[in-house]
């Protein structure tokens, strides 16, 4: 047997290691025995010989101790070497065994790869969203955001909006926090005209970088001297990614000027790689607050107590109790509240919050979702482990005889367990390597599909993820292999060695059945989640939102940031609309004042002859000013009456269009058409309702009863200053090229225009769609995975059971059972297991489903169709998994089966 040399070596090393101390004594005893013999032979008496031998040897006790110590160290080294040698041997052995069973090895390695890969991917996500402290920030655990507690109805939560003057005041009034600074974010336009680009700017107070303790990679970072009115050339610090991308990583970048919105800034330094301030995504540039306020013509940004654009952050002084700081901040905020426009009053209570993401999980929806998914993926990994454990157990039982012989030859049980576990660890290692591919693709996919709006830096596979994968691989291998190894190595010798032994006992098959039932139950839970989220997605897709979001392009430009006033904005957009209409591939162009899902306005509204109007929770009614072809361009249906035309302009009879909810609510029995309404002011002649349109969404996908009305652009109320462009592409036109063309047109319609954001209207819904998309996609992926694993597991269990029952089945067939009956027997066993698991899973899902009801759309959490569908799917899969073993069972040759045992 190939095992024997290995066993012999095991014996020798074990013995040497155990008897080291005894050996030292034996060696010395031998020496004395020989010496005494020789001395006696040369004439000494035995006692004098002994004494002489001792004299020649030296201090026996001392040498004994020395040798013992040497031996001890040697023993430890030998033991360690033996252990490592043993492990290497076990792994080599495992490799040899597995090579002989490539199918089994591949199946298990693949299972591990998927389970470990899914977990590592989720870990990468959770790590970025929750675990990682902000990069390049000294002692981030000392930093505190300063906010206030606000009570709204029954909820109390913390707001962090603070104004620039408030932050300056806090700096003086709260000595417990050093370097109190503020930071905020803003999207601004870099450059003008055709080459204008969007940048994400971090607007900070002068001591922000001193607060964080960050060191620049080139040049210097912003200082308090930059944040003053007399600052000279306004400074800008570049983000590392931006510097690489836009300026090619040029080391001579100091002194270059950048035109950002209405200001010109000089580059003074570059931030280190990975630095994102205290946000999750990195800013492209960092600007000091005062110069930004001055160049934008918005002095209120740094003067007014009411402009809450910043988040205040401070560093807790060492030795100061958080309680003391909070109390002082409370007193400070109450004092500040006396200023005009300041938020709060004499009852304000300050709130201090850590900036570490892991301390503010409850506030971040993304973090919560990521953690939930992490839990789900862990579940799937456990299923995978259970599956593999089942397979290994079945395999170990087949090797009963071999194991029994090894035990009989004296291989310690621990050693045997280690050998068996080595196989599973090796498989896990193979799976772990493959898992890295899963992480890379999975991570990339996740970022692109579901979190495209956050800026991710670095590969999905980084050092921390690698470390996690290594640990997960080891743990998984041990976990999956330990139970089967312990079970299989139990010294039930006599039973195993006897030929014709039956299945290893009810205990093992009960464990396996239990594992299988658990797998099935967990699969059901995941698949129910999939079903619910998919139904929500489908419901959203089928929903008539009132706009043709799939087709229409939106064009948006921040003209007030570059100094345009209302009249100029209006005129410019009229011009742009003409130019865009002339582009190839454009079927319709419209301009409107408000952007669905983003902005809406309300103004004075009165129906003459009525004292009061019914009110709705949503508020309103909301007004929009639109160009004549707006309805046709965005796809809102006119139900009665007409839409606007060129004839409806400034000076002609005032008209308006209302939506269906409004018509029903304000004119329940009468006809809305023809009614005259006072809009914007009583002094303006009333506007006649000429059309009723279908309801369109104002802010959220879930609502459908928003009261909205429209007036023509030419007759608009003067404070609706912003304009948005809507473009309907012609049938078959390429939307991407058209979007680029529209952007170019917008940015070059006049000299010095800023960046224009042109995107499909559907993007406005992305953030709202994310929970359903994510739920459907990830639950689906995990659910499918779990189902596959459960199916494979069921196949394994049934196949094994059939192989054990060959004798019994042979007897049945010999006694006249039909093949169909035997097949039914096997199928029934499998289906029973699956059904138990399904029932358990359905019960579990039924209990848990209401927890996600707020995440669903027009779908009941206990939707019977979903539950029934999942149960049916599981049973079908169970039958499919059992068909092959059942067929094999019915083909058993009774003669062969009866003879074999």
């Amino acid at each position, binding site marked *: 047997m190939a095992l024997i040399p290995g066993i012999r070596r095991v014996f020798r090393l074990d013995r040497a290691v155990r008897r080291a101390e005894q050996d030292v004594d034996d060696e010395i005893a*031998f020496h004395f025995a020989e*010496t005494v013999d020789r001395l006696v032979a040369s004439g000494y008496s035995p006692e004098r010989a002994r004494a002489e031998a001792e004299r020649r*040897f*030296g201090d026996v006790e001392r040498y004994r101790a020395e040798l013992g110590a*040497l031996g001890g160290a*040697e023993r430890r080294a030998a033991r360690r070497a033996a252990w490592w040698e043993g492990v290497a041997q076990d792994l080599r052995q495992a490799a040899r065994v597995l090579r002989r069973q490539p199918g089994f090895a591949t199946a298990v390695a693949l299972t591990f790869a998927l389970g470990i890969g899914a977990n590592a991917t989720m870990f990468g996500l959770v790590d970025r969203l929750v675990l990682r402290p902000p990069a390049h920030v000294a002692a981030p655990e000392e930093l505190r955001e300063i906010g206030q507690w606000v009570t709204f109805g029954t909820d109390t939560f913390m707001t962090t909006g603070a104004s620039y003057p408030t932050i300056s005041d806090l700096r003086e009034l709260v000595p417990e926090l050093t370097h109190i600074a503020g930071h905020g974010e803003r999207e601004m336009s870099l450059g003008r005209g055709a080459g204008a680009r969007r940048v994400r700017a971090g607007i900070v107070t002068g001591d922000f970088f001193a607060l964080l303790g960050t060191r620049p990679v080139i040049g210097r970072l912003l200082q308090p001297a930059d944040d003053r009115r007399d600052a000279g050339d306004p400074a800008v610090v570049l983000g590392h990614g931006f510097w690489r991308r836009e300026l090619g990583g040029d080391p001579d970048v100091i002194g270059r000027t950048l035109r950002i919105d209405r200001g010109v800034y000089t580059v003074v330094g570059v931030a280190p790689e990975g630095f994102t301030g205290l946000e999750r995504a990195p800013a492209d540039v960092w600007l000091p607050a005062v110069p930004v306020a001055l160049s934008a013509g918005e002095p209120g940004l740094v003067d007014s107590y009411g402009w809450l654009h910043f988040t205040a952050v401070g560093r807790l002084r060492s030795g100061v109790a958080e309680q003391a700081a909070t109390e002082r901040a409370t007193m400070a905020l109450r004092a500040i509240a006396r200023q005009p426009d300041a938020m709060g009053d004499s009852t304000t209570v300050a709130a201090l919050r850590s900036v570490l993401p892991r301390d503010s999980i409850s506030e971040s929806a993304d973090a919560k979702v990521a953690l939930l998914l992490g839990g789900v993926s862990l579940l799937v990994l456990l299923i995978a482990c259970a599956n593999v454990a089942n397979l290994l157990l079945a395999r170990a039982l087949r090797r009963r005889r071999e194991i029994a012989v090894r035990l009989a030859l004296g291989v310690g049980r621990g050693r045997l367990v280690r050998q068996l576990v080595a196989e599973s660890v090796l498989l896990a290692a193979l799976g772990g390597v493959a898992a890295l591919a899963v992480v890379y693709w999975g991570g990339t996919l996740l970022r692109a599909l579901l979190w495209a709006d956050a800026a991710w830096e670095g590969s999905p596979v980084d050092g921390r993820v690698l470390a996690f994968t290594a640990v997960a691989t080891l743990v998984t291998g041990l976990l999956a292999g330990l139970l089967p190894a312990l079970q299989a190595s139990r010294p039930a010798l006599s039973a195993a060695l006897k030929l014709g032994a039956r299945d290893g006992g009810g205990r093992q098959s009960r464990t396996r059945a239990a594992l299988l039932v658990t797998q099935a139950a967990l699969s059901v839970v995941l698949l129910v989640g999939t079903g619910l989220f998919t139904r929500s997605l489908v419901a959203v897709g089928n929903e008539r939102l009132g706009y043709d979001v799939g087709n229409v392009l939106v064009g948006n430009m921040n003209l007030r940031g570059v100094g345009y006033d209302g009249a100029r904005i209006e005129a410019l957009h009229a011009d742009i609309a003409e130019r865009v209409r002339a582009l190839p591939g454009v079927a319709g162009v419209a301009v409107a004042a408000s952007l669905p899902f983003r902005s809406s306005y309300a103004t004075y509204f009165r129906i003459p002859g009525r004292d009061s109007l019914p009110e709705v929770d949503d508020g309103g009614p909301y007004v929009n000013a639109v160009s004549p072809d707006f309805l046709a361009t965005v796809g809102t249906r006119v139900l009665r009456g007409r839409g606007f035309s060129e004839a409806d302009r400034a000076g002609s009879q005032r008209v308006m269009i209302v939506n269906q909810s409004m018509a029903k609510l304000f004119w329940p029995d009468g006809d809305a058409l023809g009614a005259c309404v006072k809009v914007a002011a009583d002094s303006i002649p009333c506007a006649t309702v000429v059309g009723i349109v279908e309801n369109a969404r104002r802010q959220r996908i879930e609502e459908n009863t928003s009261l909205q009305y429209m007036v023509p652009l030419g007759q608009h109320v003067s404070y609706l200053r912003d304009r948005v462009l809507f473009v309907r592409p012609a049938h078959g036109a390429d939307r991407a090229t058209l979007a680029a063309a529209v952007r170019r047109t917008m940015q070059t319609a006049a000299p010095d225009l800023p960046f224009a954001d042109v995107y499909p209207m559907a993007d406005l819904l992305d953030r709202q769609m994310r929970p359903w998309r994510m739920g459907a996609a990830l639950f689906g992926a995990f659910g499918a995975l779990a189902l596959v694993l459960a199916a494979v597991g069921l196949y394994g269990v049934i196949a094994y059971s059939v192989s054990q029952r060959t004798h019994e089945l042979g007897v049945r067939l010999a006694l006249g059972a039909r093949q169909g009956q035997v097949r039914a027997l096997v199928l029934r066993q499998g289906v029973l297991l699956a059904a138990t698991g399904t029932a358990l899973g359905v019960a579990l899902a039924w209990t848990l489903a209401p927890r996600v009801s707020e995440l669903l759309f027009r779908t009941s959490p206990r939707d019977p169709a979903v539950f029934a569908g999942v149960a049916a799917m599981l049973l079908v899969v169970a039958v499919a998994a059992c068909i092959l073993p059942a067929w094999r069972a019915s083909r058993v040759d009774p003669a062969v089966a009866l003879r074999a045992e």
Partner: protein
Amino acid sequence: MPDAADLSLLQGTLDVLVLKTLAWGPRHGYGVARWIAETTGDELRIEEGALYTALHRMERRGWVESEWGLSDTGRRARFYQLTSAGRQQLKEQTQRWTRYASAVARVLQTA
């Protein structure tokens, strides 16, 4: 009894003596002691315990390896033999010792 000064000198030389002894073939500790005693004509007084310390230390360093066996007197004894690393050590230490000895001799001969 060799006094302390002699012993420290001996430690370095003890190793090379033992190595050389084992170059003639595997021996047990007692055998090494006898061989050295006979070859040096009992001139060198070595504390036999030190010999065993040397042997064990050299085994730790990988210069010798040991195995239990039966002596020719029928007793269970621990036999030591040189490893290839030990052979290398022997060569190096012999060279060093020879150079040292001849250098000292040259100085003494000038007198």
